[in-house]
């Protein structure tokens, strides 16, 4: 390397010369470059200066007839990294990468101690690379990217590539690629690929991630090019909660309200019942809440639980939880990362108002068998991955199950002995790289829950997802992803008691989506994403059948529903200037409800009830019942106020054509999804958000403050007295109103040091208005009232403290305002009967929620050659024993009404979990 730098000095002082007039006639057929050069030397008498290694094994085939020398040289060096310089004295100096510049930039000598990246927009940009300190220089590998071209006026070039684990050959996702001394940075995607804009010239690039030894390279970039990383694992960093995967993303990305969670990083968050749960970790971040322990689903920025799109490897996961929401249905060992979009939703996603949870399963290893096992008090989990065709394809399988059935059977309580409580989930992923340009991925997932809600009933539900994805690279600029995903969610209740009301009730929804997403790296300033997606739904809304001949249950069968949902989208990530980035997307959403169906038509402008029914219209198979749709804007922008400070804003609107029918905030086994039809309109949402982001001291500290305002239309709610299950005339029970929510979210993260973690605080409100001129359709006088999940104050603190490399402790504290509830406030007599008199909808609140969890982690020792790497976790969930209400209800005892609350984890729950991986 030293030689090269000496050569630079030589070149800078080379005399100005000109030998371009020379014309030659010569012809080469598969001649090695070195031979070609000596031939030209012979013909012209010119002297070439070069380093032999540079020429490599390039061979030349060309015919020149009275061709100017520079044209000849241009041709023969076209496919190499070599530039040439013709000097006056008849010598030709070959250089690798560099163009020899015969003038020095003015400030050259004045800027001796730093890199200079050509600040000249209108000239050919010369590049000068100067030495840093000798030590640095020796320690870091230097890589040259691209060949400098004379007419290149660009200041920035694109460096892209793939990061692979040198041991397993697997891509490393979420690897931070940081340009030292600047605020530039990116991360690798799920396939380990990255792309970054670098200023021309020398950059020190650092690739770092959890569990990977940090790698630094000096990259001298002359043109667009590729640089792959082969990185080693480092066990020494395993217990560190590094939130640096996002490094500069919080500041640099254009999208607001995006959160990326990686399973590795939530490892030290205290566990409940020994389960590491990525979605539980999500709840510690601002803007994402649940209605309480045991509540179903997630409320994102004041949205209903059905407004979140859970995608597992591109397939929709309808019920992301096990056991009424106590466990998540995602296997922590196979889950790679989750990106949560709660503000600006990229144009490629559609169909839900509040958020997208894009969950990616890890790619399977293609090099060597490995696995991970955990044994907890309630569940056990195994993950194995193995190469199928070494270097090309791998298979990953994971399985998780509970032994609670066994626990229940050992209990003395006879009622519990006959109870059942079990769940499991299995996942398999196969990835096959055919070549650099084609990769196939297939995922299969199945989760099942079966438990007794009462001793004589059995409730079961299951999710099934099958996805197939083909990634294709057309060329450096164009890539495509085609995916086909099918998912099915069903539940079933079997009631087999002593009475004659035994029944079997079932519900099923199935959807299949075909999606094409293309990416076009148009230029430094523009990157286009575009594509189409089409989805077919089929719903069997429910049937109830008598379980045996003695049952008096009348069979009911609600006819199936089907619909088509499609979207076409395009977005442009447009870098207006170094400071200003705008990501503008447009999506057109389309929905058609299809027959065969019966649709009830009601008198317009009157409440829908049997009395206003005009006719029942029949629609034939696949006949279009009704179409909905419209354009959706997805716009976000980022502006750098300073190197480490940015301001971002976004606007988006969305349509949602599918609704979850639930009038409970607690999970009810009978919540069903309903497709929009003639009477039930799609929900629509609009959100604007604005945020300020700042990194301090690199990204040791991250601070963000984000605010949002959301308005939604046709939000589903229910009339007083609504009954939703197996109701053929649902439209007479539901109301569609306006939603309004707003909030401000503060997040402070400390990423480095012995003590790290984050603190999030959110102040938010969420309201709904159900107004009509008819009393039966008016709730709370038609005024805005707090929605079921309006929890103004939400504070989460997650802290980790590392004592040594092997021992660490963490704690997690959550405080939330109690959610609104409708209370009975008295009785009244009517029609010779006594009735309960309820308050206005959501007029009261249940007691506030707070909880503190602690955990202590111990790593096994770190001998790299050891067969297995082990990890012990000891946690106490709800250390304070706070009795957080799961549900509140009222009973009359001795003529007195009493309020009761039930809690799920009312006492501290200690757990010990053993994990190992190999």
């Amino acid at each position, binding site marked *: 390397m030293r030689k090269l730098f000496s050569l630079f000095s030589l070149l800078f002082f080379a005399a100005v010369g000109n030998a371009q007039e020379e014309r030659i006639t010569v012809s080469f057929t598969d001649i090695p470059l070195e031979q070609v050069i000596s031939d030209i030397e012979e013909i012209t008498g010119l002297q070439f200066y070069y380093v032999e290694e540079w020429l490599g094994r390039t061979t030349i085939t060309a015919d020149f007839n009275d061709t100017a020398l520079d044209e000849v040289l241009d041709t023969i060096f076209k496919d190499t990294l070599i530039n040439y310089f013709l000097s006056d004295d008849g010598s030709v100096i070959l250089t690798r990468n560099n163009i020899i510049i015969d003038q020095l930039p003015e400030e050259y000598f004045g800027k001796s101690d730093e890199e200079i990246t050509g600040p000249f927009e209108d000239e050919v940009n010369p590049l000068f690379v100067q030495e840093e300190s000798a030590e640095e220089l020796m320690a870091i590998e230097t890589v040259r990217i691209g060949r400098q071209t004379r007419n290149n006026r660009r200041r920035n070039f694109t460096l892209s590539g793939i990061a692979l684990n040198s041991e397993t050959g697997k891509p490393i996702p979420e690897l931070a690629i940081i340009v030292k001394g600047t605020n530039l940075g990116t991360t690798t995607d799920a396939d380990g690929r990255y792309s970054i804009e670098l200023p021309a010239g020398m950059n020190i690039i650092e690739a770092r991630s959890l569990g990977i030894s940090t790698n630094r390279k000096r990259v001298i970039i002359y043109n667009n090019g590729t640089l792959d990383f082969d990185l080693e694992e480092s066990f020494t960093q395993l217990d560190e909660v590094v939130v640096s995967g996002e490094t500069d993303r919080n500041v640099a990305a254009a999208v607001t309200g995006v959160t990326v969670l990686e399973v590795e990083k939530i490892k030290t968050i205290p566990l409940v019942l020994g389960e590491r749960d990525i979605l539980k970790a999500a709840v510690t971040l601002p803007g994402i809440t649940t209605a309480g322990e045991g509540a179903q689903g997630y409320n994102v920025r004041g949205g209903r639980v059905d407004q979140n799109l859970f995608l597992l490897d591109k397939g929709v996961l309808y019920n992301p939880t096990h056991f009424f929401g*106590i466990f998540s249905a995602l296997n922590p060992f196979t889950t790679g990362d989750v990106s949560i979009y709660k503000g600006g939703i990229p144009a490629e996603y559609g169909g839900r108002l509040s958020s997208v949870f894009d969950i990616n399963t890890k790619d399977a290893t293609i090099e060597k068998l490995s696995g991970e096992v955990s044994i907890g008090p309630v569940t056990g989990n195994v993950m194995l991955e193995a190469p199928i065709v070494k270097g090309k394809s791998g298979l990953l399988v994971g399985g998780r199950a509970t032994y609670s059935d066994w626990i229940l059977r050992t209990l003395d309580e006879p009622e519990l002995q006959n109870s059942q409580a079990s769940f499991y989930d299995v996942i398999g992923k196969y990835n096959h790289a055919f070549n650099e340009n084609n990769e196939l991925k297939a995922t299969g997932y199945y989760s099942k829950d079966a438990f*007794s809600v009462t001793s004589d009933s059995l409730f079961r539900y299951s999710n099934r997802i099958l996805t197939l994805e083909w990634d294709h690279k057309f060329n450096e600029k164009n890539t495509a992803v085609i995916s086909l995903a099918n998912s099915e969610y069903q539940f079933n209740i079997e009631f087999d008691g002593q009475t004659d009301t035994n029944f079997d009730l079932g519900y099923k929804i199935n959807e299949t989506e075909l999606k094409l997403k293309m990416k076009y790296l148009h230029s430094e300033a523009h990157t286009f994403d575009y594509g189409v997606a089409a989805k077919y739904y089929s719903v069997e809304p429910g049937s109830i059948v008598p379980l045996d001949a003695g049952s008096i249950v009348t069979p009911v069968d609600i006819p199936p529903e089907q619909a088509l949902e499609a979207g076409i989208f395009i977005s442009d990530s447009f870098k207006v200037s170094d400071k200003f980035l705008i990501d503008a997307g447009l999506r057109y959403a389309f929905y058609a409800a299809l027959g065969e169906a019966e649709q009830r038509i009601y008198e317009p402008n009157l409440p829908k009830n*049997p009395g206003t029914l005009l006719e029942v219209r029949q629609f034939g198979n696949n006949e279009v019942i009704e179409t909905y749709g419209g354009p959706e804007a997805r716009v976000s922008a980022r502006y750098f106020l300073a190197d480490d400070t940015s301001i971002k804003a976004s606007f988006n609107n969305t349509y949602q054509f599918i609704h979850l029918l639930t009038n409970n905030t607690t999970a009810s086994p009978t919540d069903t999804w309903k497709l929009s039809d003639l009477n039930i309109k799609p929900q629509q949402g609009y959100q604007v958000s604005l945020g300020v982001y700042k990194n301090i001291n690199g990204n040791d500290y991250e601070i963000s403050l984000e605010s949002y305002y959301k308005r939604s239309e046709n939000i589903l709610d229910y009339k007083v007295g609504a009954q939703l299950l197996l109701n053929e005339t649902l439209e007479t029970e539901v109301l569609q109103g306006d939603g309004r929510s707003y909030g401000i979210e503060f997040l402070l993260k400390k990423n480095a040091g012995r003590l790290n973690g984050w603190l999030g605080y959110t102040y938010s409100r969420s309201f709904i208005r159900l107004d009509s001129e008819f009393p*039966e359709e008016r709730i709370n006088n038609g005024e805005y009232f707090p929605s079921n999940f309006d929890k103004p104050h939400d504070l989460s603190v997650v802290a980790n403290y590392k004592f040594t490399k092997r021992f660490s402790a963490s704690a997690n504290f959550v405080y939330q305002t109690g959610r609104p509830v409708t209370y009975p406030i008295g*009785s*009244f007599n009517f029609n*010779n009967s006594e009735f309960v*008199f309820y308050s206005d909808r959501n007029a009261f609140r249940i007691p506030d929620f707070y909880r503190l969890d602690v955990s202590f982690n111990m790593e096994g020792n770190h001998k790299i050659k050891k067969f297995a790497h082990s990890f012990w976790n000891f946690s106490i969930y709800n250390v304070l024993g706070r*009795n957080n209400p799961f549900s509140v209800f009222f009973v009359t005892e001795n003529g007195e009404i009493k309020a009761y609350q*039930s809690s799920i984890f009312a006492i501290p729950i200690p757990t010990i979990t053993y994990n190992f991986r190999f």
Partner: protein
Amino acid sequence: MKKLKAILKYITFLVAGLFLITCVEEFEPETITFESALVVEATITNEMKTQEILLSRTYAFEDDGPEAETNATVQVTDDQGSRFNFVESQAGVYRSTAEFSANEGRNYTLNITTDDGRTYSTSALELPPSTGLDSIYAERIVDSNGVDGIAIYADSFDPTGTSNNYRYTYEETFRIIAPSWTPNDLVPDEDLGGCAVKVVPRETEQQTCYRTDSSTDIIQFQTNDLDEDRVSRFLIRFISNQDYIISHRYSILVRQLIQSDQSYTFYETLNQFSSIESLFSSTQPGFLNGNVSSTTDENEKVLGFFEVATVDEKRLFFNYEDFYPGEPLPPYVNPCMTSAPVLANEGGCVLVNIVRANTIRYLDDNGTPGPREGPYLVVPRVCGDCTEIGNSEVPEFWTEE
């Protein structure tokens, strides 16, 4: 409250399934404040009669029952300027000063001014079309639960197809014969004093009584989904053959009310609140808007409903023997165990205190009292005195055969 208990059960089992780590505890809901609101129950019909409107207040859970809304001014007006004034006949019960009927094609409005000066009113309601109750009839059936009993059905038909919303109420009256009645009774022997009692002839009729009960369920039927506006074999009431009420002649008066859409919806929703909650469904709770609103404060909550309905009614009688000839009667409301309480024991007087409490009736003398037995055989009061559960006066409408 059965609903809440069902929920409690549900929660308890659910959590029991969750490894017994859940707990249910009482808490003090500080925020709950009882709200007193006016409850209006008014149904004006097309029958020429003294119409009745009930006004009460909501009451707290710990209270026994509603407090009547007294001293209110109640008036019904129609769209042609007719006014019908109501006066309070007993606490909370307001009766029209004159008989009147709601007429077809007219719109009626209810206005209330309470004692504290607050005013309430409804929008104008039109009388729905009138449809006669064609017939009611009783049949012996075995119901879907396998219970043998008497079903009372209603049939009705509106050829114009405009009635659609039917609500039924009934009043059932039955004769009760006290199975252990004797002409004599026990009274405290005031002459002897102390613990003494004596046998005297009864002074009032206590053997045969009649009892009338009103329906408490909301019974509704809608014909919109049917090909024609016909009510056919609609079950109004089912009485098990083990129910004593049909032992000694039974009568039922079924009233058929044709409701407006709005009334029908209101009653239907109200009914969902009272029906027993099934384990797997839940009803959206909330304040149920009626059609009466405060004109003083539009945010004031007013419960109940003002209904204008057309009514037709029919009565039927039957005897137990009509359906169960020669079969034993249903068991009486009480198994009527005899006992012979001692006159006194270590603790003091026994029988005389029971006599004073009026909970037994004399059956016979206890010829040979065993140890710890007294001189008289007695039965629970209801077995020897039907006035405990009925009225000895024969109702006006009662006919034999």
